[in-house]
């Protein structure tokens, strides 16, 4: 089906480009290739419709994935879904556990030592900083 769509798209693009640029002897309507191109397009469209009808009538046969919910044995459907859930949740659980563990270690370190002395830059209120930068003689605003 994908091949048919691709062929239709290619043929349409070629026809439009030819018409726009005046290739093939000065105009698409007078071109000798036009009947053949249109016939090819017509055939491709028919195949496209046929594929769409088949897909609608028998989705199980048309599905490429053998382990999706619609087809396959119950065993491999279960295995597929369980492994999808595992591979999705496992990294999230590991990242969450690592963040929780680090946060707990940081919290414990904070209780053992006051954070103001150890947490890097000491941030003072803006008014106090302005006053200190201006010097002791300056009055606070």
């Amino acid at each position, binding site marked *: 089906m994908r091949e048919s769509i691709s062929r239709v798209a290619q043929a349409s693009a070629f026809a439009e480009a030819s018409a726009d640029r005046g290739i093939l002897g000065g105009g698409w309507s007078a071109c000798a290739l036009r009947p053949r191109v249109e016939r090819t397009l017509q055939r491709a469209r028919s195949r496209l419709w046929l594929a769409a009808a088949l897909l609608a009538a028998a989705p199980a046969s048309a599905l490429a994935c053998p382990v999706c919910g619609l087809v396959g044995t119950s065993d491999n459907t279960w295995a597929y879904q369980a492994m999808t859930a595992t591979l999705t949740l496992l990294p999230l659980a590991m990242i969450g556990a690592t963040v929780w563990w680090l946060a707990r270690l940081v919290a414990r370190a904070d209780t053992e030592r006051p954070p103001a002395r150890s947490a890097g*830059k000491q941030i003072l209120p803006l008014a106090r900083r302005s006053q200190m930068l201006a010097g002791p003689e300056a009055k606070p605003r």
Partner: protein
Amino acid sequence: MAAMSVTRMQQQTMRIVRPATRREVVPSGLLGMVIFVGAEVMFFAGLISAFTISKAGAPRDAWNLPAGQVLPLASTAVNTVALFASGALLWVAGRQYRARSSAATESLLAAIFFGALFVVLQGREWVDLIGHGVTLRSSALGAFFYVIVGTHAVHAVAALAGLGVAWWNLRAGRLSYGFFLGAQTFWYFVVLIWPVIYARVYF
């Protein structure tokens, strides 16, 4: 005047914004190993996922070893006990190391011994299986078995090498706590991932 004021401003700024005092809440070696182990967990999860889906999709009579061979459940259970003993001894070594570093030498060596015993016994099983015609190409189960168990064995050997270096440095009195914790974490990973592999692949 302007220069003086700039200098004073710089001095004041230095007084306000104190240089950062770095503190290590977790040793870098341990944090790096935790991230690495996370990646390894996903690697094994991918292998086990592929195994599970392939097994579920295969016809029942096609999922077996050639010539009626079966995977050695009982002897692998014994190997598993050796691996758990190694993990327990390493836990004891960790406690001893925190109390008095030199006290951990013997228990660490015992942990390495039991870990090496696990690898050697697994290798002996492999030799038996290969002798009975079970190879990577003999069946899908054989291929998965060698890839998953072999990958675990490679990790076990690498972790044992790390523990060996830790033991050597401990004897020489130059083992850092971060390195010990990293080696310990990697070995715990090897020990704890094994029951999952054993339960999925052997049964």
